[in-house]
């Protein structure tokens, strides 16, 4: 995973709440068996509309998505994260994310930032006034800044450290193999096993 410390880019204002994962990438686009190539499916239904914000030239190079409340609700498909990343997004900002989407993002190195709704709205206004506005996301300092505005955000220490170091979760867990071994020795014998039929 790529390390994430700071990112400077332009943003895309997505003035919609409850952007569910079926909108981020519809099910018919989930059939690939790789982690790449999902950019075509990103917001596929909405992109049919030439007026949709993603189709506007001034936002074509955006790397930061600023969306309404409850972004990423619905299914657990990590393809939603891959579609955003494959398209070129590095950061998503919203006032609230669905749990599974947020977890998936952290695994794949897509930074999700929670700021109050009033700050989201101020960002939308600023971006719409000036689509070329550079926005700086500083994970080290835990803030987002543009123009003379700086908005602080919370992120737990562990996730921040993992993202900043670009660490792979599985590698970290495998350092705890002794703990896993010990736990397995104490598991109750009545717990089911998929390879053994009892009845």
């Amino acid at each position, binding site marked *: 995973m790529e390390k994430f410390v700071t990112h400077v880019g332009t943003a895309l204002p997505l003035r919609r709440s409850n952007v569910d994962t079926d909108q981020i990438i519809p099910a018919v686009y989930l059939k690939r068996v790789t982690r790449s190539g999902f950019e075509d499916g990103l917001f596929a239904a909405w992109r049919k509309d030439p007026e949709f914000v993603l189709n506007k030239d001034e936002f074509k190079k955006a790397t930061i998505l600023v969306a309404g409340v409850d972004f990423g609700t619905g299914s657990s498909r990590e393809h939603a994260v891959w579609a955003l990343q494959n398209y070129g997004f590095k950061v998503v900002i919203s006032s609230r994310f669905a749990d599974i989407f947020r977890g998936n993002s952290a695994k794949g190195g897509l930074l999700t930032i929670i700021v109050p709704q009033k700050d989201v709205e101020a960002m939308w206004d600023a971006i719409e006034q000036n689509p070329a506005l550079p926005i700086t996301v500083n994970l080290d300092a835990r803030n987002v800044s543009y123009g003379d505005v700086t908005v602080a955000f919370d992120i737990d220490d562990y996730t921040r450290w993992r993202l900043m170091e670009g660490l792979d979760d599985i590698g970290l867990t*495998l350092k705890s193999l002794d703990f896993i071994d010990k736990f397995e020795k104490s598991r109750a014998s009545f717990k089911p096993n998929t*390879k053994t039929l009892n009845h």
Partner: protein
Amino acid sequence: MGKTLAEKIWQEHVVRSAQGEPDLIYIDLHLIHEVTSPQAFDGLRLAGRPVHRPDLTIATEDHNTPTQNIDQPIADPVSKLQVDTLRKNCAEFGVRLHSLGDIDQGIVHVVGPQLGLTQPGMTIVCGDSHTSTHGAFGALAFGIGTSEVEHVLATQTLPLVRPKTMAINVEGALKSGVSSKDIILAIIAKIGTGGGQGYVLEYRGSAIRALSMESRMTVCNMSIEAGARAGLIAPDEKTFEYIKGKPHAPSNWDEALAYWGTLFTDKDATFDVEISINADELEPFVTWGTNPGQGAPLNSNVPDPSAIADPEARGAAERALVYMDLKAGTPLKNIAIDTVFLGSCTNGRIEDLRVAADVLKGKKISKSLRMLVVPGSARVRLQAESEGLDKVFIDAGAEWRQAGCSMCLGMNPDQLAVGERSASTSNRNFEGRQGKGGRTHLVSPLVAAATALRGTLSSPADL
């Protein structure tokens, strides 16, 4: 101080705990399907890692699989590749797989309980958000993404931050014609699609205890629609009875039972949040919008967005009515339906088929619509056929299909056409969920059957 049920299960599964880090949680059962697993197996292969516990892992084919002509190769080459990839991966890594055509094939959340693999006090995960279904047995069960699927395959654990707890107390008795689907739709309408975020929900109260196991699964299934990764119900005699004799029910039954008997929320435990629902007042409930929180009693009208105070919710309602092509004030019962879908991990079990067949028996569905009946698993299909339910559906004019996720998410050929409107017993009414441009109203099996007969959204009381 006492503990909630979720806290007890959590504590039992902590492998490692350290200040400032998530807990490392042991996973008792990992369910797999074709859509969210190929990249995870690929990751293992790249790193040269085996599946740590193939004996705690099981796979089935459900999301992509056709519900017709299943003896022939899958027609869509991309779907076929995904299913073939699962078969190849399961063979290579030693994972038990129930393929299309196998008697134990079906929707992953129907298969687990039916095999007796879903038991109280377990941690269960799957790369599918409706894994919360298994919470009906008093298990802590939740959906995960593909990176987490790979993590569980490699280590049988997950690093997780302990969720908060929310009690949902449903007291009273349901009126005739009101079902567990109406309970959960009413809960989601009350707390919203984000109301459960960060929480494990525990459904409690006399109305929940009165539900059958399969009805409890319907409630827990849609926890994610309220934003909660997991929802559970304390196990009781009904739970134990349901598991008894199933293929993977414990052979040392008494030992298991002694442990299961400890799985309840202590009297002096406190939840972070508690909410209450009065079951006496519940009516058949349907959705009118494009998220599962946008629902209302069937006897009411399409709401007027201008009457919604919150500007965010008002805007969402306005957009939803445009997409759904509905006018504020229209009685919900006047909405004409093109397709009725009975099935899914929410309502594709034998009891769901029985109650719907009971409404349809000896009658004909409206000529203005089609009805698809898709059993949740091959065994549910066989059970239904042994009871003659297939004949009831076919005689009524419905289509009787093979098991799978089908039109719930429209990954296989079972899809709505642009502008088509469904009454669906599934779990999501998102824009285009059941096919591009399709419009979904979420309903219970009873409402689905009555709607099929009348052609507009209806309950059996309207017949």
